[in-house]
């Protein structure tokens, strides 16, 4: 029964990792870029929410809204400054380094807004209950549902709307999409906004479950998102979801059986092993194969 309980806890946490992983996968799938500042954008959103809270006084939902909007704005800013100017194929490194610089900047802005190390971040007051032998935290269950709804909404957006069609076309082949009249640079902006919104939702769920924010949150979420994406497969959205869930489950199990100090070691080890044994990740094999084929033309 204990194993089941741990797995369930892991699944709850994993759903939030999945959202952050999707943020990375969206950007990578469409632009073949890594946004290192993504975690910092989320931290910025959360800090802004806490900073503005005394003025707005909207309570928990205010926190939720401002975190989401702040993260999306920061993400859009990162796109304008770091990714829009570097569109050539060979410039992915430059864009990544630029986003690292902005990571430092957003980190600093956030710690100016939150001068102390830890700040309380309110969550919803939800009852906890027992389901048979399993202990369920109401707020975590709610978060799981929010994550599920967000992912469903994203699915609808990508597969049922015209914008989604444009996004998928660009992900498949940016040059052809551009020639057929898709405004690819504008689409990049939309993608970053979308990633910021999803990440903001994820950040709210993580922070309100923990109950506090520290300046380390930016780096932490960047790593979790990257690992979730890599685990599932680069640029694959279902992969990022599955990767996030697996990451959550493995992490809680490792923490429960080996102790907290080995938890991160296990996750990094797992991702390293996956990369060595199955470089495309669990789901993104197709992308990896086409990319490596392009590399090995001869």
């Amino acid at each position: 029964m204990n194993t089941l309980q741990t797995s369930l806890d892991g699944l709850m946490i994993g759903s939030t990792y999945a959202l952050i992983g999707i943020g990375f996968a969206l950007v990578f799938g469409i632009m073949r870029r890594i946004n290192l500042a993504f975690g910092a954008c989320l931290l910025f959103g959360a800090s802004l929410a806490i900073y503005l809270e005394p003025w707005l006084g909207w309570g928990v939902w205010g926190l939720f809204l401002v975190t989401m909007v702040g993260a999306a704005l920061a993400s859009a800013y990162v796109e304008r400054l770091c990714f829009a100017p570097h569109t050539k194929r060979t410039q992915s490194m430059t864009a990544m380094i630029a986003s690292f610089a902005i990571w430092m900047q957003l980190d600093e802005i956030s710690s100016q807004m939150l001068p102390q190390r830890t700040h309380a971040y309110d969550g919803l007051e939800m009852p906890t209950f027992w389901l048979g032998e399993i202990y369920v935290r109401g707020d975590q269950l709610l978060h799981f549902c929010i994550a599920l709804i967000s992912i469903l909404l994203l699915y609808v957006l990508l597969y049922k709307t015209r914008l989604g069609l444009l996004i998928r076309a660009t992900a498949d082949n940016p040059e052809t999409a551009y020639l057929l009249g898709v405004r690819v640079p504008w689409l990049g902006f939309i993608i970053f906004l979308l990633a910021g919104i999803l990440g903001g939702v994820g950040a709210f769920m993580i922070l309100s479950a923990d109950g506090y924010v520290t300046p380390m949150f930016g780096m932490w979420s960047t790593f979790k998102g990257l690992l979730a994406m890599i685990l599932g497969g680069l640029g694959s959205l279902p992969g990022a979801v599955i990767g996030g869930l697996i990451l959550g489950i493995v992490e809680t199990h490792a923490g429960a059986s080996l102790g907290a100090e080995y938890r991160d070691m296990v996750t990094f080890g797992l991702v390293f092993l996956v990369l060595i044994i199955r470089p495309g990740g669990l789901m993104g094999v197709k992308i990896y194969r086409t990319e490596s084929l392009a590399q090995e033309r001869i």
Partner: protein
Amino acid sequence: MDPYLASVLTNMTLIAFLAISAYLVLVVGEVSFGQQAFFGIGAYLTASVTVLADGHVIWALLTAVVGGAAGTLVLGLLTIRLSGLYFAISTLCFAELLRFSLLQTRFTQIIDGRKLGPDGPEGFSNIRWIFDNHFDATDFLLLSVTCLTVLLLLLFGLARSRLMLQARMVGNDPILAQSQGLNPTHYRLGFITLSGAVAGFGGGLFALFNTHIEPAMFGVMLGVHALTYSIIGGLGSPIGPLIGVVLDIGLLESIRQLAAYRMIVFGGLVALFLVFRPEGILSHRLVARLKRRWGRRHV
């Protein structure tokens, strides 16, 4: 020399080793987020040899070089199939694994009534080599600058060689290099191992200078900074990473009174700078142009 200034300059030289090691990986077209781990290995090995085994500092630094090189060689062999982002993330994971292992390394001994050796998260204290040998800040600065100069001279010698040209070809276009009869894997492994050796050596000096090291010092931030220095400085010349270090740490230290806001300004400036000079200051093109102009004047 003013001890504070000397220690700032020494720090810059030591970080320059790490930046050069990141540069060496970039030469063969790969990106490493993990050089800081080999820096850390070098630091721990040097500390162990000088403190625990009471060995000579030359042996200590040699161990650091070999340790760093061995670490990167293992990483290079394990990731032999990977390239691009996959390689970058695997270096990140490998480096973090090594750092977590350092966090768990406890091997303390009582020597002369003092507890010495790596002690998990507490790190490795009392590396008394510079006190025992009466090095002050200026002496150590001289030592590290000399080492860095020798390394740079070696790299300049290498830059004019066929080997470096071939390595750059592998970095720019592995397929083209292959069709010219080069084996990209050999060049990649060779340069990655070399980068580990450089990082290990720098880490060894770092341990001697700081007298206290702990795993938290060798986090990913350090490695990404080193990478940033290489990119800002430009990949056209081995001096590039050094310029990046001088710009960053030099500027940071000189506008210290603005400490709170300096990253806000500096981060934005770096991003803006990359918009206008995406290849960094000393790009291949600029170096080639300078060489032409210089050559014309002297021929």
